[in-house]
């Protein structure tokens, strides 16, 4: 299968990136300095990521807010233009079709960023449930760049002249045809820029040439999000996991009881779920990976890892997975089955590393 390219694929190749396939796209995994340096650079300065593989859609029309409240457990009618919301599309069984960020652009227009691997599924799902008067438009010709790290704000001002000092976390502002939102997948302060594809290269270089900015690839993106305990669709969350067991109960809006799959989700909020997503930190040597079984002292299986890897910040292996409620308490000793050896580990609270996103502005 030929992999799809982003408007920036040529740039990554020119920069000497190690390219690989992700969700059907040919993407940069890491650049010349390697993912560990990139990770540290994002935590201390600012990393530039091409995330153009992700889907971008408009949801427009008079009933768009009500429609989104039917498809997700969040509230949208009350959201002011410029507000961005992290949420999930739920299916009839209360599982997760996809996780996404939805920003309100104006009274009748919402802009959503969806996962690359779920684009076709999501758009079918959105269109299947479409009421009269609402439309879904695939913004196929827009690139998406993330600038993440403590130096991101300064770099964005210096390189592009965008004054984002007053832009709060989870807010979006338009600079002409470029959307800038204070969002990200790294736990650092930072921005995501939606750019018409013909301008992507120019903006990329303007940002990259800033002293505090270096390009970073998907491997660093993965270790950064893992440290933050952010779920990755298709791994930590999927069609079967509910937002409650995934630890995403906070996205369920109190006023919304009429969304698809509400039965299971609201019941689990009340009674608890049969399993819980937790963080696991390895105490012994080795690297925990997706699929590893989690065992208790007696060797009984209590769960499974859905993500795992190495934390550059903690200098040890960490993972996330689902465990039975009795094993979900932070401090619980577990053993990670790595190629048949039970490596000692402990259940910990998420995130593994404290988030440094800009605090949201207090509502007046």
């Amino acid at each position, binding site marked *: 299968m030929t992999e799809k390219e982003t408007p920036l694929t040529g740039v990554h190749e020119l920069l000497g990136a*190690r390219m690989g396939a992700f969700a059907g796209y040919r993407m940069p*995994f*890491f650049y010349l300095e390697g993912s560990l340096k990139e990770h540290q650079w994002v935590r201390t300065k600012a990393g530039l990521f091409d995330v153009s593989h992700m889907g971008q859609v408009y949801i427009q029309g008079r009933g768009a807010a009500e429609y989104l409240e039917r498809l997700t457990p969040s509230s949208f009618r009350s959201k002011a233009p410029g507000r961005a919301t992290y949420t999930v599309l739920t299916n009839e069984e209360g599982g997760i079709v996809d996780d996404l960020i939805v920003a309100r652009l104006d009274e009748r227009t919402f802009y959503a960023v969806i996962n690359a691997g779920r684009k076709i599924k999501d758009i079918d799902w959105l269109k299947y449930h479409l009421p009269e008067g609402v439309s879904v438009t695939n913004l196929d010709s827009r690139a998406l760049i993330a600038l993440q790290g403590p130096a991101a704000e300064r770099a964005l001002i210096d390189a592009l002249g965008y004054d984002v000092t007053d832009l709060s976390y989870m807010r979006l502002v338009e600079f002409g045809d470029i959307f800038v939102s204070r969002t990200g997948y790294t736990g650092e302060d930072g921005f995501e820029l939606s750019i018409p594809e013909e301008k992507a290269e120019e903006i990329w270089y303007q940002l990259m040439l800033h002293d505090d900015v270096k390009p970073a690839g998907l491997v660093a993106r*993965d*270790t950064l999000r893992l440290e933050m305990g952010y779920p990755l669709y298709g791994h930590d969350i999927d069609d079967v996991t509910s937002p409650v067991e995934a630890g995403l109960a906070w996205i369920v809006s109190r006023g919304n009881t009429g969304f698809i799959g509400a039965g299971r989700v609201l019941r689990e909020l009340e009674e608890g779920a049969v399993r819980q997503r937790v963080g696991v930190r390895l105490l012994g040597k080795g690297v925990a*990976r997706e699929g590893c079984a989690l065992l208790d002292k007696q060797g009984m299986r209590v769960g499974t890892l859905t993500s795992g890897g190495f934390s550059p910040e903690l200098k040890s292996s960490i993972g996330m997975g689902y465990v039975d409620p009795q094993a979900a308490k932070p401090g619980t000793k577990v053993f990670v089955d790595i*190629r048949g050896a039970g490596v000692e580990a402990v259940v910990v609270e998420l995130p593994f590393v404290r988030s440094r996103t800009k605090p949201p502005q207090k509502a007046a």
Partner: protein
Amino acid sequence: MTDIRYTSEHEWVKLEGDIIWVGITDYARNALGDLVYVELPSVGRKVAKGDDFAVVESVKTAAEVYSPVAGEVVEVNGTLKDDADRIKKGLPEGWIAKIRISDPSELEALMDKEAYDRYVAGLG
């Protein structure tokens, strides 16, 4: 004069009498990215040709290291336990294990540098 051979699984093999030193090539290291952990075999372990006898863990993924020939592990590079990225240094510090070979004729199937370079070039 050292004699270095290569496998199609991207191990390098340094011959030294009836002992071989085994490591992974630049090609493998570049594909894996930053290395964070190496699982070493125990000394004395008997291996068949093609057995995975070590695991190299990068940030991204885990990769098995296969024994180029049949034999017995006689020494492992313990310094890799605390510094997996040392493998990047290649020959000689980046060796993973030394194996006493049981059948020297198996070495004939390995590639020399020229053949290996051609093989890698063909992988695109």
